[in-house]
């Protein structure tokens, strides 16, 4: 059995045993609760927003938590001296995180289709969720590399939320509509993420769609290269006898 498959099965088993999968499902149920409480007859506007919150913060947190557990228990030390490549290690966590985001999408979409009218292209949404989750799982790696413990990971996440997520949402709800601010926001990955997710509702221009796609695809590639390159120093710091 290829080592990537072994790692994927192992990671899946661990997110179940460590209740990370359960927490992820609970969060999805909370999003369903939000949809239930939404009084708007058409939830097309809210739906991508919930996926935005899930695909960004939950993806960062999921990667961060699994690495944190491995660091805390010392299992990371022994993983680092096994015949697995660093690419396999990164891919395992990315694939599991993206799968969790897709599961959330599926649960929300099923609820929406049955109980609330929604006008979204599921497959566009699926692609968007996967790309946003991929990008942010890599952000999770970078933040974990530079976080000494779980508290410092949460602090780093807080900084990311403050710097990127909150401004993006403020602008999205037209609470901050200054022209310069709106233009500067195109530098933020969260702007690209929310743009791509709303593309499934057909409410954005093709120019914005191309911007969001390019940003997240190229950004993910660059982050992956960065995560690979800095994995060795992370391994040297966390591993060893």
């Amino acid at each position: 059995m290829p080592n990537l498959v072994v790692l994927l099965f192992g990671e899946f088993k661990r997110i179940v045993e460590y209740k990370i999968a359960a927490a992820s499902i609970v969060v999805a149920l909370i999003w369903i609760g939000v949809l239930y409480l939404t009084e708007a007859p058409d939830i097309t506007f809210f739906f991508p927003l919930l996926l935005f919150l899930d695909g960004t913060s939950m993806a960062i947190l999921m990667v961060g938590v699994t690495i944190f557990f491995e660091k805390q228990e010392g299992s990371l030390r022994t993983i680092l001296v096994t015949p697995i490549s660093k690419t396999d290690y990164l891919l395992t966590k990315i694939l599991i995180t993206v799968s969790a985001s897709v599961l959330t999408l599926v649960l929300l979409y099923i609820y929406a289709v049955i109980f609330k009218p929604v006008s979204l292209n599921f497959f566009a949404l699926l692609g968007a969720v996967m790309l946003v989750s991929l990008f942010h799982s890599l952000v999770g790696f970078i933040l974990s590399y530079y976080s000494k413990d779980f508290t410092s990971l949460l602090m780093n996440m807080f900084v990311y939320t403050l710097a990127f997520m909150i401004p993006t949402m403020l602008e999205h709800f037209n609470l901050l509509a200054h022209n310069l601010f709106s233009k500067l926001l195109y530098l933020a990955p969260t702007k690209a993420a929310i743009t791509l997710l709303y593309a499934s509702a057909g409410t954005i221009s093709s120019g914005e769609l191309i911007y969001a796609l390019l940003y997240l695809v190229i950004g993910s590639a660059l982050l992956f290269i960065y995560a690979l390159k800095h994995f060795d120093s992370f391994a040297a710091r966390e591993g060893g006898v």
Partner: protein
Amino acid sequence: MFQVKNLTYKYPRNQANTIKGLDFEIRQGEIFGLLGPSGVGKSTTQKIMVRLLTNYRGEIYYRNRDLITYDKDYYQEIGVGFEVPVHFSKLTAEENIAFFKKLYHNKADTDTLMKRLGIYDDRKKKVSEFSKGMKIRLNFVRAMLNNPVMLFLDEPTIGLDPANARILKNLIKEYREQGGTILLSTHLMNDVDELCDRVAFMVDGQIAEIDTPQNLKRKYGKSTVEVEYVKDSSLVKTAFNLETISSDNLFFELVRREKIISIHSNETTLDDIFIKVTGVESYA
């Protein structure tokens, strides 16, 4: 097995070298002790040898091939035993071992190992329910599960009761008898004395002494025998040179005529050598 030549390493954020020109070899089938107080570069040396640090200067040859040319398959051949627990605590011992075992081509008979170490009956328990000693024994199973040809062990008996420490030391000796090679790092000089074929004492990133424990004891010990006896109701101590004692008539006269209380050779211990060479007291 390993040839280390003029090994130097500096951590990126440090100004000074942590490892300052190490030269040593580890021969196939021997237990080589790497000793020294904390912070002298033992861990860094081992991190380099298990390929966690790669940007070193100098040369390291593993099985006559430059270590730098090995890829992840290097880990197929080595086993690393840690001092601290390194398992997924919410999985059972059996699940932990099964997961890691799948990553290797060679697979050891881990059931037998677990039986020998007394943790087989607890294999279906979660590791979080294990005592510290059980986790340490499980660490050893983890290190051995690929039938490694080279084993790195860090304080393998720390946290074990004497009976389990004995079992583990016997397993280490059996591994050597079967041709295995070990780099052992420990502060327990009794373990070093019992297990190591050769030892190196590290001080400030360099090797201060390297030899067999026996030769080091000879070098640092007093080659005398001290006899305690009673003479005229008082206790008297006399020392004899060990090398000339067989022809020393005074010694034999004394043993024949006086009431001997004790006879001690003044052979030094590895603890004393550790303190002399490194300037720091060991734990045991």
